């Protein structure tokens, strides 16, 4: 019980927090929900995964903890968290990785917190589960001190009082903080956050996003932030991947991807968000049609049926290619054609 969050993690600091190569996820029927996704997240890096319903972003998040239903088939060439490979591991091995190397926070904290257990006990349970405390009588004082330290880390006011409270006695924002404290209890190298602020009001959302960045700065924990909200991703992440119909279609820094999108889908998505740039009361640009399951089986560009710039080459499979002159990668035939030549 002497470890603190500022102490250096067990794996060397240069090991990638997450290293995924060629991840595909399929469910019982139909085409794969996720196809050939590769992701890497450095220590202390915040990676955003953005996309609309059905793009596969949540499946990717869940697979990193081995939390997909048993009916899902997960294939990958490599899938390592903090240097520990997850591919082909038993549930028992995964159990050791979960919590120690990687943990997860969700949109709705009430689904993750135990409603009939005091906050303090929920944190202590995690400490014991992951060998941070032997759970003996003599360890009690240390456990309590550590629980308080964690609540302070996530900036919960009056932590002594909160230890004795139940989840229903807390506000939504406070519950989200407590869930983050529980997730951080075993000092994971990677925190997966799936829509962590979607159910919160904007002023509380701003607090939680600040907290995630602050945690990263203080503990070096890397974060994968899954969200449909372009603004949340833009303001929080160091790097962003855009997913469409199960594939990564664009990757780069938020400044690159969201200020000058390289893929027509990213561009369409950005244009349809009402901002100060749109003349009030005018029609917003839209993306025609919608995603269907068939799109995920398409050999060529999966966005082509909806794309305003589609051409015959789009029927051919498209690789995620580096864009000349910047650090980004785009899955589109137009990516290396300059704006003027289109």
């Amino acid at each position, binding site marked *: 019980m002497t470890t603190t969050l500022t102490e250096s993690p067990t794996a060397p600091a240069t090991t990638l927090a997450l290293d995924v190569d060629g991840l595909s996820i399929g469910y019982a029927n139909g085409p794969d929900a996720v196809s050939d996704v590769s992701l890497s997240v450095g220590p202390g890096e915040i990676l955003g995964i953005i996309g609309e319903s059905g793009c596969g972003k949540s499946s990717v998040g869940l697979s990193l903890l081995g939390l997909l239903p048993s009916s899902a088939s997960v294939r990958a060439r490599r899938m390592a968290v903090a240097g520990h490979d997850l591919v082909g591991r038993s549930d028992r091995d995964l159990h050791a990785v979960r919590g120690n190397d990687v943990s997860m926070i969700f949109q709705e904290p009430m689904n993750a917190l135990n409603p009939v257990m005091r906050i303090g006990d929920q944190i202590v349970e995690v400490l014991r589960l992951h060998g941070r405390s032997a759970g003996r009588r003599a360890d009690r004082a240390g456990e309590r001190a550590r629980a308080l330290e964690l609540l302070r880390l996530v900036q919960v*006011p009056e932590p002594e009082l909160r230890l004795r409270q139940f989840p229903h006695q807390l506000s*939504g924002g406070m519950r989200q903080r407590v869930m983050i404290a529980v997730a951080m209890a075993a000092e994971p190298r990677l925190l997966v956050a799936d829509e962590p602020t979607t159910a919160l009001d*904007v002023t509380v959302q*701003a607090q939680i996003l600040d907290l995630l960045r602050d945690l990263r700065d203080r503990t070096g924990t890397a974060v994968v932030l899954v969200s449909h909200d372009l603004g949340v991703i*833009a303001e929080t992440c160091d790097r962003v991947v855009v997913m469409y119909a199960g594939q990564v279609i664009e990757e780069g820094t938020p400044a690159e991807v969201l200020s000058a999108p390289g893929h027509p889908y990213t561009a369409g998505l950005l244009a349809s968000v009402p901002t100060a740039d749109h003349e*009030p009361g005018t029609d*917003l640009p*839209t993306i025609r049609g919608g995603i269907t399951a068939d799109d995920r089986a398409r050999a060529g560009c999966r966005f082509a049926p909806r794309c305003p710039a589609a051409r015959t080459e789009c029927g051919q499979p498209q690789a995620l290619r580096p864009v000349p002159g910047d650090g980004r990668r785009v899955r589109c035939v137009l990516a290396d054609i300059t704006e003027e030549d289109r």
Partner: protein
Amino acid sequence: MNDPHDYLVYVEGLQQDFPARGGEPVRALDDVTFYVRRGETLGLVGESGCGKSTLARAALLLREPTQGRVIFDDTDTSSLRRGALRATRRRMQMVFQDPNDSLDPRFTVLRSVAEPLVAAGSGRAEARRRAAETLERVGVPADQHQRRPHEFSGGQRQRIAIARALAGDPDFLVLDEPTSALDVSIQAQILNLLQELQRERDLTYLFISHNLGVVRHLATRVAVMYLGRVVEIGPTEQIFRDPQHPYTRALLSAVPDPRGAARERIVLSGDLPSPRHRYPGCAFASRCWLATDECRTERPPLRDHVDSAGEHVAACHHAGSTTLPADLPVGPAATASTDPVTA
């Protein structure tokens, strides 16, 4: 300029109390006054628990207010008898965030849209004809009218819910977060549809949303609510360019921008205080970085601080009195302590 005959809806001094176990009632609405002009969209913003939805129900005459009244189309609805009240209610409709709240999963969508017309006294054939017409108008083709809600996507279901609200040809529509559950590319389609319908049918909207970008795009004027009170109200462009109430400023600054545009950032500490507590002064004082003793004891009235002839008003003792940007702490943790009643 401000002619009460322009108002389709005028809500005056509305107060709504709900009984609470072992204590004073919760005051969900506290002296709320505003109007909605004919053919305009009033955007209503604020965070959960601020009373937006309670206000919507009161404006739709679905619940008798503890105090105050609603004047609809120059008629004081508090004096209406049952038959007349029903007729008035039919001129008002609501669209919810979740279309499933207004569609029966067992009915074909045509029946769901036709049903309120039948209830209002139309013949079956006539009701079906008008329902089909409305469904086609919102973008649901005739060959899909016999399907049930589960066979449609979320966006299509919201179109059907809009058709159901519109079929009876109402004048006033309350839209309660109508696009919050939709993907952004679908959201844009629904917002465009709502704008087209408003122009075509001369509709008046009360548009409730926590999404300020959406409100900015759609609303003619915006009302900002905090803890059961309207703290600021004015033309959309002015509210966004020159917000007067510190809460409005904080709210606007908290919206993340996809293109990372530079903006003032005020991160409020703490959560919304409990509505069970009564605040003699300004309800926002516990989280406000400008709060003085006056704010904690004297309730600020809605006043014009910007010479707008009463068009843009805010309830703040400090609005307009100082040059706010200069003495405003920005960045994380810019504010005072957490409110003690927060839990």
